[in-house]
């Protein structure tokens, strides 16, 4: 970290000198904040933020939700990693959500978020996230702010260029970051046979129009290199998708050097409408694979995981007119599409300029077969023929670009730690502001839609050294909010984030806030262990399995005294929260449990599995402060030795006479 920073400062300062702009020494960060910044971000107690901000949690595996402009953290939604606080991945009902072809995987790395779109605008129904390690895509329902579906991707070695979506959420895409031998081939090959044996696969996941259900519609097999980011065409370019590719050198070792040899890599343009035609015409090859598809139901309050065994693969080499490459300098990262869909902005991490490509010119070049050659059978368009123009000397290390509603683009500059505003029309730099430090992604309110809102921009920084009170060697990463409504960008807020924030999106609160579910209706609860009122609670022994159908309501558990549990038993606490009111969850914990707590929403049923590990009395209690008598919301379980004949007894508010000899004198 230190080393990186040291390299960053001089580079930044020299760039600043080069362009004759005032050098923003990070030490004087305070100076760059205008005096009205506080007014612009202050949301008074009891008032709402105007925007939801969905932020990737990076290596936390989760997605966070902030309010803007206040920067208040509203929620952390568990997606790919277990969350003991919410019982996610610990309750019996949620465990299947983290199932994969490798079995239960408790962690991942969530990089990018995408809110569902209709006609190129956010529709506020779902937000998608990608898992970068064990390749998957998750769908979060914005009625419940819960992960309701996770689909795994076969033939993939890490899912980075994902979960970008088409303008009507027809598809969510996933492109493998690491090429690997296809799953139906023997993968036991020398690593240095990368060029022969490794393939890059991109997946098109269809999304159900009404229910949002995901399904891998088809995959396209491409040459083996690294797919980095992607964006759907929109408006004029609807029907196309663009993927940035690096390591076209096809190196399999020391990529830092070996994948940075060429002065241009590629952006791949995919004609997905054409791919659909080939699929319909039966040109796909059915391939035997293994991947998990997990769905959570708000009716059964539980998840199911299914292992699927087939995908249809289209070969980009054989089906000539699906994929085209065009060169992009150098190791491109972002490839972002302008609001009208006319321009594709490539950001070469190692390039000193930003190339802007024209969709119209791409179409012309394809029609005229204006190729400079082929790469593994895929035509390469001529750079000059598809180029709209280059933004000269924008800064160092361009990564990502988003757009406002006035024809401007904003690009994050990792190496020179700044956001650069430039005009799409004449490609001139209009403004630049420092970020603290090493900005990765940025997001503009509505910045990837057809009509960006353009009020705010948030930069997500990888390094925050000296920005906050020190907290030992590890510092939180940060977000920085800029007001971009005027000619000059204005830094108005700094706030720490969870995990490592990558991409994020900013959505008007109106689209989402009215749809929030407040509680689950008991009448609709179809969990097999649902207790429909205290009268139906029970404890049932099936061999060494004991099922406890329990209820929670302010402020007692029913039953709260249970005897007759024995060593070697597997006890399942199926707890129904009987409340039917907003914001009254109950929690459940029992001493010595090796998993976590449960947090049970009103009207919901959740199950905690418990293996008693010694003979004696075990307290259990509600973990969520629910009323003035919350501290009373507790109970006891008696555990007897294996083979004991203490009868199964359960009750609340009664004291049965001692059921066995242990107490008799």
């Amino acid at each position: 970290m230190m080393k990186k920073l040291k390299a960053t400062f001089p580079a930044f300062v020299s760039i600043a000198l080069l362009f004759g702009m005032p050098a923003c020494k990070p030490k004087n960060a305070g100076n760059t904040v205008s005096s009205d910044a506080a007014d612009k971000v202050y949301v008074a107690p009891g008032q709402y933020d105007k925007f939801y901000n969905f932020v990737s949690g990076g290596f936390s595996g989760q997605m966070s939700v902030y309010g803007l402009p206040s920067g208040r953290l509203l929620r952390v939604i568990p997606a790919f990693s277990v969350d003991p606080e919410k019982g996610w991945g610990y309750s019996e009902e949620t465990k299947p959500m983290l199932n994969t072809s490798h079995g239960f995987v408790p962690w991942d790395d969530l990089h990018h978020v995408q809110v569902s779109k209709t006609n190129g605008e956010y529709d506020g129904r779902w937000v998608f996230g990608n898992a970068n390690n064990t390749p998957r895509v998750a769908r979060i329902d914005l009625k419940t702010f819960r992960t309701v579906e996770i689909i795994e991707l076969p033939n993939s070695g890490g899912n980075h260029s994902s979960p970008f979506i088409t303008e009507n959420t027809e598809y969510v895409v996933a492109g493998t970051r690491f090429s690997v031998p296809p799953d139906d081939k023997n993968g036991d090959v020398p690593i240095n046979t990368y060029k022969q044996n490794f393939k890059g696969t991109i997946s098109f996941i269809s999304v159900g129009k009404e229910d949002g259900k995901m399904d891998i519609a088809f995959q396209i097999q491409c040459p083996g290199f690294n797919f980095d980011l992607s964006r759907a065409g929109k408006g004029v370019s609807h029907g196309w998708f663009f993927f940035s590719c690096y390591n076209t050198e096809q190196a399999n070792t020391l990529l830092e050097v070996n994948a940075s040899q060429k002065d241009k890599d590629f952006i791949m343009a995919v004609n997905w409408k054409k791919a659909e035609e080939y699929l319909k015409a039966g040109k796909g090859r059915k391939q035997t694979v293994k991947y998990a598809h997990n769905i959570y139901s708000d009716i059964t309050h539980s998840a199911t995981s299914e292992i699927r065994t087939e995908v249809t693969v289209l070969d980009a080499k054989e089906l000539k007119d699906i994929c085209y490459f065009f060169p992009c300098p150098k190791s491109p990262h972002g490839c972002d599409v302008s609001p009208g869909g006319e321009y594709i902005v490539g950001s070469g991490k190692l390039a000193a300029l930003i190339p802007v490509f024209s969709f119209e010119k791409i179409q012309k070049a394809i029609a005229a077969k204006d190729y400079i050659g082929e790469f593994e059978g895929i035509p390469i368009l001529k750079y000059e023929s598809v180029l709209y123009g280059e933004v000269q000397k924008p800064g160092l290390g361009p990564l990502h670009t988003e757009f406002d509603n006035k024809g401007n683009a904003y690009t994050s500059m990792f190496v020179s730690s700044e956001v650069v505003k430039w005009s799409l029309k004449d490609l001139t730099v209009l403004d630049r502001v420092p970020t603290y430090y090493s900005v990765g992604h940025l997001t503009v309110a509505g910045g990837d839609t057809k009509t960006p809102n353009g009020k705010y921009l948030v930069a997500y920084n990888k390094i925050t050294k000296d920005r906050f009170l020190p907290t030992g060697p590890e510092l939180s990463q940060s977000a920085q909010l800029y007001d971009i409504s005027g000619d000059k960008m204005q830094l108005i807020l700094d706030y720490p984030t969870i995990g490592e924030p990558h991409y994020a999106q900013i959505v008007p609160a109106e689209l989402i806030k009215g749809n929030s579910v407040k509680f689950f209706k008991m009448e609709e609860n179809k969990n097999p262990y649902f207790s429909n009122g205290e009268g139906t609670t029970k404890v049932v022994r099936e061999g060494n399995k004991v099922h406890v159908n329990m209820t929670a309501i302010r402020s007692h558990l029913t039953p709260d005294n249970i005897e007759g549990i024995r060593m070697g038993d597997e006890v399942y606490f199926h707890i129904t929260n009987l409340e039917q009111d907003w914001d009254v969850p109950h929690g459940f914990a029992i001493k010595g449990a090796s998993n976590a707590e449960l947090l049970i929403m009103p009207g919901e049923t959740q199950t905690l599995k418990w293996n008693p590990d010694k003979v004696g009395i075990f307290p259990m209690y509600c973990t969520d402060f629910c009323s003035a008598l919350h501290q009373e919301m507790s109970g006891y379980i008696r555990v007897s030795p294996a083979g004991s004949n203490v009868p199964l007894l359960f009750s609340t508010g009664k004291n049965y006479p001692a059921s066995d000899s242990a107490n008799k004198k």
Partner: protein
Amino acid sequence: MKKLFVVAAIGCLTMLTFSWGGCDSNTETPAPVDETKKSENGNPSYDPHRGEGKFTKVEVGASLDAAMAETGNKVFGVKCSSCHKLTEEKLVGPGWKGVTARHSPEWIMNFMTNTDAMIDKDPKVQAQLEICLVRMPNQNLTDADARALYEFQRKNDGVK
């Protein structure tokens, strides 16, 4: 008169939504005060006999509707019995014996369906809250379920 108050309240709400302006008493039409309706806690707009909510007149038969009472019994088992006993004994909330004598049918129906607002305003509920120390939850009853529960409470109080 009551209507007038409602109009003022809506106006006020609308203002809130559009301007975050706050609900200044000097910007709304003052509701005329009827001294006879003034409740014990001094809230002039609150009617402690009827409570507050959508029920203004509940039709109650001379004799029991046994089928309806049975439906009420079922809902009781699911949504109420964890806190209320059918005797005079307090569990979390007060025992239900005599509840139909303590309150008008409108008050009970309103309380069962508009719980939070009444806990904040009704002097009798506030007195109970001081004893129980638990806010009665809104159990999101349908109107039909609420009416069935009332019939069940009548049965519990001896109506044949």
